[in-house]
């Protein structure tokens, strides 16, 4: 009987949001609900599941238009607080990338480098309302004669500032180990020699794409929580790989899908966009993302009900294999085991260390839940799906 099966549309859910009748739960809560009631009943009772993640995401940055100067300038090179921005765009358009260090940073010449300030910190400072020094040089043209400017800029005074991250919210990521004899400093944090620790970097059962493994609802145009404001998924991110191996539940066991996201920087908050420094590696930006998943049918309820016990990732050696470009899985581990604080590997207990903040991820999922419940956040229909495999 069609009436028995819970099938909804996004329009119906939005109507419920406007009427204040929507039922929203976090992905954590949904795991329990599906376990207790099964996907059929969960799909009837729950309208939206909110997810969240807060983690360093290197492929992030912002497009900024800093306004025309007098006399006019076609900026060829631009620095923000001495961090180079890409200026190979229109006259006063730039892109500031999260991992760009300050030009005078000693980098790894004294190893391990500290990378105290970079593009991610510039973005955080701007969002925090701080003044940032902008310096530009130019070769001069008939229409843009000015060869150099220096000024203090503030986010609210910039004509345009858009966060546009080419790759965020990785659907699963490696669990990193170091089997070499020396300590190493990586984008996965500090890894002690001889398998002294393993580091991992997703929020597991709270993570957006792990709750929508086949991209049934998340696609181009999906409205999301981004950096404390509202943003959108604008397409698949770089390295988006829907063909990564998957478990029986459809969840990839390797890094798979990624998202390109965009949102107005002026509406964001530094609590959800934090500059980070990875010792011996470089600078980056921790980005807060929350994505609502409409529970349109029992399949989606089942996917959003996934638990840490059912999400696996692979252990990769960053001491030797990864740097050689020959990463190969040394073993499989669940997020439940990773989150327990220690994993069993080759007959030994190894401390497991997260780099992704579960506390903040949950906070994001709860904020998004409140936004939807209060009616200030409506769901949007994807205008294009992300490239993906067909569900089994």
């Amino acid at each position, binding site marked *: 009987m069609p009436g028995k099966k819970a099938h909804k549309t996004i329009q119906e859910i939005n109507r419920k949001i406007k009427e204040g009748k929507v039922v929203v739960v976090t992905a954590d809560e949904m795991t329990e609900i599906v376990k207790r009631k099964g996907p059929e009943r969960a799909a009837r009772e729950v309208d939206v599941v909110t997810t969240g993640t807060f983690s360093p995401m290197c492929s992030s940055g912002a497009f900024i238009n800093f306004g025309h100067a007098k006399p006019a300038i076609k900026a060829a090179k631009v620095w923000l607080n001495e961090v180079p921005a890409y200026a190979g765009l229109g006259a006063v358009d730039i892109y500031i990338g999260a991992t760009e260090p300050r030009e005078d940073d000693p980098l790894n010449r004294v190893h391990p480098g500290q990378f105290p300030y970079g593009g991610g910190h510039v973005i955080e400072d701007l969002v925090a309302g701080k003044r940032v020094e902008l310096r530009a040089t130019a070769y001069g043209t008939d229409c843009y004669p000015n060869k150099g400017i220096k000024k203090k800029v503030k986010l609210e005074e910039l004509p345009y500032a858009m966060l546009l991250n080419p790759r965020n919210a990785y659907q699963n990521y490696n669990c990193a180990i170091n089997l070499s004899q020396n300590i190493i400093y990586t984008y996965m*944090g500090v890894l002690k020699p001889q398998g002294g620790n393993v580091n991992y970097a997703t929020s597991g059962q709270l993570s957006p794409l792990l709750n929508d493994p086949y991209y049934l609802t998340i696609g181009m145009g999906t409205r999301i929580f981004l950096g404390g404001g509202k943003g959108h998924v604008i397409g698949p991110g770089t390295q988006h790989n829907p063909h990564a191996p998957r478990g029986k539940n459809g969840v990839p066991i390797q890094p798979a899908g990624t998202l390109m996201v965009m949102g107005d920087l002026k509406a964001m908050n530094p609590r959800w966009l934090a500059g980070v420094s990875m010792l011996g590696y470089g600078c980056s930006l921790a980005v807060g993302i929350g994505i609502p998943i409409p529970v349109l049918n029992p399949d989606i309820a089942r996917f959003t009900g996934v638990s840490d016990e059912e999400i696996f990732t692979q252990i990769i050696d960053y001491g030797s294999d990864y740097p050689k470009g020959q990463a190969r899985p040394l073993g499989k581990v669940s997020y439940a085991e990773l989150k327990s604080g220690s994993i069993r590997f080759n007959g030994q207990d190894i401390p497991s260390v997260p780099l992704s903040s579960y506390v903040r991820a949950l906070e994001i999922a709860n904020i998004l839940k409140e936004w939807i419940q209060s009616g200030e956040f409506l769901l949007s229909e994807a205008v294009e799906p992300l490239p993906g495999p067909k569900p089994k």
Partner: protein
Amino acid sequence: MYSKIISLRFPKDIADQPVVVNLVKKFDLTFNILKAVIYPRKEGFLVMELTGERKDFQRGIRYLKSLGIKVESVAQDIKRDEERCFHCGACTAVCITGALYIKRPEMEVVFNSDKCSACELCVAVCPAQAMSVKFNKALI
């Protein structure tokens, strides 16, 4: 048994005298030196873990202070900026004393300053730059 990590700042006139040994001889305390520096102006700086009966410990501290030595709990020396810390957990990979640990199931990173040995590993490792040394690092 009571144990605490403390920092001692010796004025230059006593930096060359035997002091710590008296904590053993006079007050029945044991110590484990974690860091010792003599600065260019001859002031001394020492970080150690001091262990013994609580009463003896307090008498020992009074003795140190009577010599003009500035005694501080090291726990106060490593600070966490609660606003900046976003509870990722990266610091727990390097914290040797377990002062930084993850409270489960909340996954909140807790800083128990009583256990901190001020080794400063977390200061360099923290991606958010939330951990800092309170005293003037330039002097060390």
